[in-house]
């Protein structure tokens, strides 16, 4: 990838991370760890890869994105705002009574959200349905989804894992955000879902590995997925939970808690913003 493009994406990802922290700090609740971890993938998808138009969010020919790990709504809202689907200032309403930015994404309320998610395992199945609908309608759109590595402990994920290769859904690409942590700790200690790549391979998927914080690596995996015919692709994206905020990185405790005012200042400083007062 050209350096200029990379710089642009890095800028988008940084803004997404700042907005994630601001949203969760404003709400006093939310899921920063996993949200920060997928910021680079979202920047790449929405600013480099996906065919979406904020002026026509329901375009039937658009590419689709499903945040299967719906608790990472702050990251999705941030990238949608950055892309222009709705005003950035609305992000401060996240999780509040008068806002349309629910704790988990609601496709009926939020422009640019293609599927309501929050209950783990369901989003990836819906993404399979969207990809199948594209095949039935002979449309060329592609469907992307991000799953958590903890999320794949849900049995329903493996129903979808059978479904997509069976129907040769090569228009479906999923990312497994492989940060190794879930609420109760290390995924291999809570309920070991590894080896993730071999599991998807055995279910009939094309499997790619990538570094979730390296745009060249993300790009290579996505472009490979697009070239594969007759098979869906699972990209196992090695990520750092809490990426970009010093005290949140690799800490399971930041899965679902909000920074206090002091922590907010430090987090924003880590992301290049000095907060006064």
């Amino acid at each position, binding site marked *: 990838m050209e350096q200029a493009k990379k710089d642009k994406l890095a800028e988008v990802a940084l803004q997404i991370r700042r907005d994630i922290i601001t949203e969760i700090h404003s709400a006093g609740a939310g899921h920063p760890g996993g949200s920060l971890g997928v910021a680079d993938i979202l920047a790449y998808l929405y600013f480099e890869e996906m065919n979406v138009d904020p002026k026509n969010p329901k375009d*039937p020919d658009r590419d689709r994105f*499903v945040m299967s790990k719906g608790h990472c709504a702050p990251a999705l809202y941030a990238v949608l705002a950055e892309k222009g689907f709705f005003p950035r200032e609305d992000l401060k309403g996240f999780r509040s009574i008068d806002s349309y930015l629910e704790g988990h994404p*609601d*496709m*009926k309320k939020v422009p640019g959200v*293609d*599927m*309501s998610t*929050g*209950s783990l*395992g*369901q*989003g990836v*199945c*819906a*993404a*399979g*349905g*969207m*990809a*199948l*609908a*594209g095949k*039935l*309608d002979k449309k060329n759109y592609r469907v992307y989804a991000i799953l958590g590595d903890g999320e794949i402990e849900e*049995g*329903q994920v493996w*129903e*979808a894992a*059978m*479904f997509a290769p*069976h*129907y040769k859904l090569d228009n479906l690409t999923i990312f497994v955000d492989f940060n190794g942590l879930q609420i109760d700790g290390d995924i291999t200690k809570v309920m070991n879902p590894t080896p993730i790549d071999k599991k998807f391979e055995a279910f009939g998927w094309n499997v790619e590995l990538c570094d979730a914080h390296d745009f060249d690596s993300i790009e290579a995996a996505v472009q490979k997925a697009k070239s594969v015919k007759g098979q869906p692709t699972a990209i196992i994206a090695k990520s750092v939970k809490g990426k970009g905020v010093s005290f949140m990185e690799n800490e399971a405790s930041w899965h679902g808690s909000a920074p206090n005012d002091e922590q907010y200042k430090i987090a924003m400083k880590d992301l290049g913003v000095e907060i006064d007062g």
Partner: protein
Amino acid sequence: MADKIATRQAYGEALAEFGEKFDFVVMDADLSKSTKTDCFKKKFPERFINSGIAEADMISAAAGIASCGKTVFASSFAMFAAGRAFEQVRNSVCYPHLNVKIGATHAGISVGEDGATHQCLEDIALMRTLPGMTVISPADAVEARAAVLAAIEHDGPVYLRFGRLNVPAIFDKDTYKFELGKGVVLEEGKDVTIIATGLMVPEAIEASKLLKAEGINAEVINIHTIKPLDNELVTKSAAKTGAVVTAEEHNVIGGLGSAVAEALCEGCPVPMKRIGVQDKFGKSGKPAQLLKKYNLTAEDIAKAAKEVIAKKA
């Protein structure tokens, strides 16, 4: 009278019939021969999607397809469609109010020999609690066909409850008018109201005959749409007769009887009895034996009718 036909058979045939005019997709979870969606599969193989034995994935994938603008009929046994996949129905389908129509067959105790694990007696209760969900329980093949068409034309999720057992014809295909949310008065009466759904409708009609022989005039109402309930008709009839019996092949907790009780408690409280399965699991047996064992017969309805009449002020 026409031959007895199961509502599930009418469901499959209606899908095949209406599939010509409407561009919907049908999904099944490896039960197409039993749910009768194979009628559709034979005619429109490219629009039939088997999820395998994976009801959770079927319902969520149906939501994904529906999000792209296509109506989907997702079919399985009531036990698995409403029971196992309840949370997928709630979060993937009802929350985003998508056009997924759940064709649930083998509902109720009349499933018979398969026994308790397959006799879903809770589905009306489960589906009725979901905001925006329409719940339909047809009484015969003609009504089942009409319900499928109504589901296609309705914008939003619909739960369709069908039975395994062949049931007698009540309605005439050429004259029957189905209106979503409207009950159907089958007999007018003044002494007691019998409100029934599904295969308990013919039992209710039979009960009214038994009562007539004893000089009691029963009003018989068929409720095909349990949600939204025809509150107006139910309340008006209760006000007229002053006593109500409900009859359903479902647990008395949460089903038609509960829906009617809720309406009458607020609108017109009268003495009432609920005929249904009394908070029990089913068991193996022949459907007719089971209906008798669990007190789901015309005689049980007639007996309950006399009890509520006796309680009138």
